[in-house]
């Protein structure tokens, strides 16, 4: 391990922080080895409700634009905010086009840019909307002095809940006119939300959709999480949401799901990091072994 790099990262050097994050992402560095190196000034990790928050929802509901506005608000209040923005890797070539920065302008401000760190992350080989290594990257950013970490997941549909394995809180972003009332009744991601934001409230149907979501929660057990309306475009509702999210409580509904996703995530990582993976995929692709045989080879590890 490059001791000098890590020391510089703990001293706040952004280049060294970025390189350490790459080391974690490429699994050349292990977060467990970095934990002991943190200088002892974590007394100020005082009573904040959460350190990491996942913002998830279908493609095109306005996650990136909303996050841009939240970054500005939170940085203006003096918080150091990191954004880990995740986009998908090609399942064929492994390449990725990471375009979340195109919509982010919060860090254009000379006063705020030192309080905002943005990193684009590709899902690489992992399935799901958040690769597990994001948990390590989040922990490291918190160690080197960032107050809160926002995780923007890949645009995801109804049942993708891997973000529960990684973030302290889950916020689901919805848009107006996303189907009839039955959509709000369907099982899945919404059930795990600590808050729901209906964005694009300047368009018709947003309030009605918010009401349907609230009704759906009220039919179930437990408290109804906050359901809030925003328009990232017209900048309405942003201040309220920025305040509400900062003190967002754990809905308690996702504890078991959280552990299930962590377990699945670690199991998947074990498979993806197997030396035999490439060989097994090649054999499966030409049909010379079956899935059961492939699982057998992996179990030999």
């Amino acid at each position: 391990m490059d001791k000098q790099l890590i020391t510089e990262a703990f001293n706040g050097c952004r280049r060294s922080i970025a390189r350490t994050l790459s080391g974690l992402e490429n699994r050349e560095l292990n977060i467990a080895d970095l934990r002991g190196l943190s200088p002892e000034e974590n007394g100020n990790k005082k009573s904040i409700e959460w350190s990491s928050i996942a913002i998830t929802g279908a493609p095109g509901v306005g996650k990136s634009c909303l996050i841009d506005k939240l970054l500005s608000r939170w940085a203006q209040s003096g918080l150091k905010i990191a954004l880990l923005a995740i986009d998908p890797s090609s399942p064929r070539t492994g390449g990725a086009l990471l375009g979340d920065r195109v919509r982010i302008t919060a860090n254009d401000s000379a006063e705020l840019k030192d309080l905002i760190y943005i990193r684009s992350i590709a899902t690489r080989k992992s399935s799901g909307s958040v690769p597990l290594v994001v948990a390590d990257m989040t922990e490291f950013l918190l160690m080197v002095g960032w107050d809160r970490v926002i995780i923007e997941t890949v645009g995801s549909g109804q049942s993708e809940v891997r973000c529960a394995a990684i973030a302290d809180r889950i916020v689901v972003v919805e848009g107006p006119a996303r189907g009839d009332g039955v959509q709000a009744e369907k099982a899945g991601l919404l059930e795990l939300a600590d808050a729901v934001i209906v964005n694009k409230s300047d368009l018709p149907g947003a309030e009605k959709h918010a009401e349907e979501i609230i009704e759906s929660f009220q039919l179930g057990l437990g408290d109804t999480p906050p359901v809030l309306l925003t328009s990232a475009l017209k900048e309405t509702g942003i201040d309220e949401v920025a305040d509400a999210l900062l003190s967002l409580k754990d809905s308690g509904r996702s504890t078991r799901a959280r552990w299930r996703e962590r377990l699945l995530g670690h199991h998947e990582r074990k498979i993806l990091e197997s030396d035999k993976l490439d060989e097994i995929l090649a054999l499966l692709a030409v049909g010379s072994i079956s899935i059961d045989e492939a699982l057998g080879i992996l179990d030999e590890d």
Partner: protein
Amino acid sequence: MLKQEERYISWVVLIGKNSLDHIMSEPLRIVVAKPGLDGHDRGAKVVARTLRDAGHEVIYTGLRRTAEQIVETVRDEDARFLGLSSLSGAHNHLFPKVCELLKEAGLNDVIVFGGGIIPVDDRAVLFNCGMRAIFGPGTPTSEILDFIEKACQESNIGVGGVSEWHWSSTS
């Protein structure tokens, strides 16, 4: 269950047939940026797509970025390559500025290339600033990939590197 030898043979056959399936263990991180007041990004998007399809992770900045913003992006994203695109004629001002700020920020090992409407007569100055390739209109996308591959084998060709090497482009 196949024996070890049989497995090995199918593997070799497959590599020959479809090398796309051979996923790189660690993709390169490449920032593609549009400095200055220039709204033409077709070229930058084609290059970004080409790099993506070659298995790299491409971070696209979007339009109208300042030199400072581009350097901060390269720093925070820990990119190994930076591609600059300009069609506005301001390359002689913007490209050297980006190179200078990269060096100031200690990002000497980042490999910088450029493209767009860059007259051949202007290129020597840009190479002197530490850029390692300039691609004009009509460049086959495969040539950019050849450059990336070659650049990975050269040493000291970051923007602050001592090597005098640069790519001789066909257009």
